[in-house]
């Protein structure tokens, strides 16, 4: 009895291993962004505005947690006045750049890409105007 169970068990084990390996190899890809998307859009940091540039980035990556109605950590990014006071308050740039000593944002997601950060940087450098 003992031997039968052992024999049976090892067969099942082998079958599972073969199936898993097969599936694993089948769904395995060796892609990279540079080759998969060879013509990245150029990063245009001219004509950066709050309404046209910054607000859409906030809407896509920040407002789901930091809206006026549910402000995680008391932080609000879905309107100009609150975002401006955040930018002036000095923790904003460290957080979205995921620097040491800051809470890396967006939390649990990829860091904003270089182009988005460059646009936000341009806007802050211009004095974070409400335009």
């Amino acid at each position: 009895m003992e031997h039968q169970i052992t024999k049976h068990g090892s067969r099942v084990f082998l079958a599972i291993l073969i199936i898993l390996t097969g599936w694993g190899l089948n769904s395995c890809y060796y892609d990279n962004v540079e080759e998969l998307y060879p013509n990245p859009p150029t990063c245009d940091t001219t004509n950066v505005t709050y309404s046209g540039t910054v607000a859409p980035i906030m809407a896509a990556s920040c407002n789901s947690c930091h809206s006026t109605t549910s402000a995680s950590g008391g932080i609000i990014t879905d309107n100009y006045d609150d975002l401006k006071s955040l930018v002036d308050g000095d923790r904003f740039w460290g957080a979205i750049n995921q620097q040491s000593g800051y809470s890396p944002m967006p939390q649990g997601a990829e860091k904003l890409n270089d182009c988005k950060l460059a646009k936000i940087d341009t806007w802050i450098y211009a004095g974070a105007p409400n335009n």
Partner: protein
Amino acid sequence: MSISAQEDTTSVKEETKYTSSFFETTRIVLGQSIENPEHGKLIFLIQHHFGRVNTGIYEFFGLDQATIRLGLEYGINKWLAVGLGRSSYRKTYDGFVKAKILRQSKGARNMPLSVSYFGSIAINTLKWENEELENYFSSRMAYTHQLLIARKFSPSLTFQLTPTLVHKNLVRTIEDKNDIFATGVGGRVRLSKKLSLNAEYFYVFPNQIVSRDYDNSFSISLDIDTGGHVFQLFFTNSNPIIESGFITETTGKWTSGDIYFGFNISRAFTLVYPNDVW
């Protein structure tokens, strides 16, 4: 097993004594330990940590933020376990299998080590960063393969080596490797019947992750076994909780104080009472 051993021979035959209780639970801290859920047992696991302690009093040393993984794992038989989980980090779903290959034993069969295989698939379900591109579902997936090689040197000391391969279907640049090799070392020192001190470190071999910053994951924990539950109170520099994340995507540095405080809670439920108790 003991019955068949007695039937086999009339003379005094040495029995195989398998080593057990390498670790308190199925995790050393973040990483897998050699332990499987026992046959017929379902473990409900809450893995949770707060934000970085160096964010200071304004963020209440990280307690304003949390990263969590909820998981279920089940021992299908005495050598095979499966698990499912969902982490808040990159809204990731994961599934895994964990199979015992060798068991440390003494007596009739002498085996110096226990060895298990661990394999997992993780699927990131964040919205695509750029929806105008042709995005592929395969780009969301990452795989982890590990050998868990453990030895219990004494009732109070266990050591584990964890050679690891993480495969990512999509990486950023040509220079970044899709297959990332790493190795983990970890262990447990038992302080008392109820308390253990665990530590683990994952070393990523160099020149594989090129386009972004990463740091090796190091975690320490205090395990408290209350009988029904195991609590693990830990400190780590890793924000992700699943293998493909904390091994290759850790960005915090211990030296800068990018340390997360957290705890795992695991609770075992008996679903099936196996006849063959071991």
